[in-house]
């Protein structure tokens, strides 16, 4: 029982870390020497490393908002899990935790989909960077974690 709890907690923390890295790193699109989105466009020219803020288009701002919301909801679900661990009645289910975790996964999914569809095509044919991949990896993990919380019951 304790092992399951520990495993679920570690999974949750890993998901949170993945989401934070994916949101904070500006590497959703990479081209030869440059990485950009969500926050900065950085490129290494022969002069050095230059960064400028990403374009202010509406869809990039929507992706930013959805990623930040997913991080927040994952964090709230972690706190709800720890709270419900000690305060839930016997046989109760971790509903709040599950709801927040599933909402977080929905937000990541929406953000990643919007970015995929609206990906800017400057003509430099950028590839998707590691932050984008992390977002897509975090989405099913988050969903599975939320479903585990629905199934999990508190025994004593």
């Amino acid at each position, binding site marked *: 029982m304790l092992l399951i709890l520990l495993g679920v907690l570690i999974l949750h923390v890993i998901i949170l870390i993945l989401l934070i890295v994916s949101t904070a790193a500006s590497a959703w699109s990479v081209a030869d020497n440059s990485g950009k989105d969500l926050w900065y466009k950085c490129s290494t020219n022969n002069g050095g490393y230059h960064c400028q*803020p990403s374009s202010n288009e*509406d869809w990039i701002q929507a992706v930013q908002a959805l990623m930040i919301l997913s991080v927040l909801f994952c964090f709230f679900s972690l706190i709800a899990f720890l709270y419900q661990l000690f305060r839930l*009645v016997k046989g109760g289910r971790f509903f709040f935790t599950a709801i927040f975790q599933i909402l977080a996964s929905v937000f990541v999914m929406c953000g990643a989909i919007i970015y995929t569809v609206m990906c800017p095509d400057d003509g430099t044919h950028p590839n998707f960077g590691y932050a984008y991949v992390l977002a897509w990896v975090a989405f099913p993990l988050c969903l599975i974690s939320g479903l585990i919380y629905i199934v999990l019951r508190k025994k004593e």
Partner: protein
Amino acid sequence: MLTFLALTSVVLLGIVPEQSQAIAIYTGWERHALVGSDIRLSCSFFSWRWTSEDVTFSWTYRPDGSRDSISIFHYTGGAAYVDNKGPFRDRLEFVGNPGRRDGSILLKNLELNDNGTFTCDAKNPPDIVGRPSSVRLLVFEKVPIQAGVITGAIIGVVLGLLVLIVVIYYLMRFLVARRVFSLSVSKHGKKKKEGSQQRQIKV
């Protein structure tokens, strides 16, 4: 001795401020406007002297990407002279108040070609030493969305909804506990099977 000291101090007080203070001109840093709209470019100055009657204001315009400036406005001797041959003919109006040290101009019906730097130079004789100040004009076809507005709006709405739902949930639980309403499932996790003596009012 005292007279000498008094005289020196008066002379020093008279001379030194004149050399160290200069006229300071203030305009904005950057102005944004839509095509077809009007914009007021403000210019004012600070000077230790009283505003003289020979105060002058002049505005020059340097288009983006060009190295030449053209003079578009001059106020002197109590009269304002606006551009009547250059890029702003019939579109420039003086809306300042020289008595209050305000030399602002109004540009009407902006075009995309009006992007550029506007420099205001003011002189308040005998206070004439000063640096002109420039304001950059950016004309847009549509107003660009500022960074972070939509982001903040989405986050705010979702968090607000979350708080609202939590408040409503606790409110309903509070009202059920006070028996204002009765539900078929009242407390968290426990299912109460009511006997059928009381009518259940489903909310």
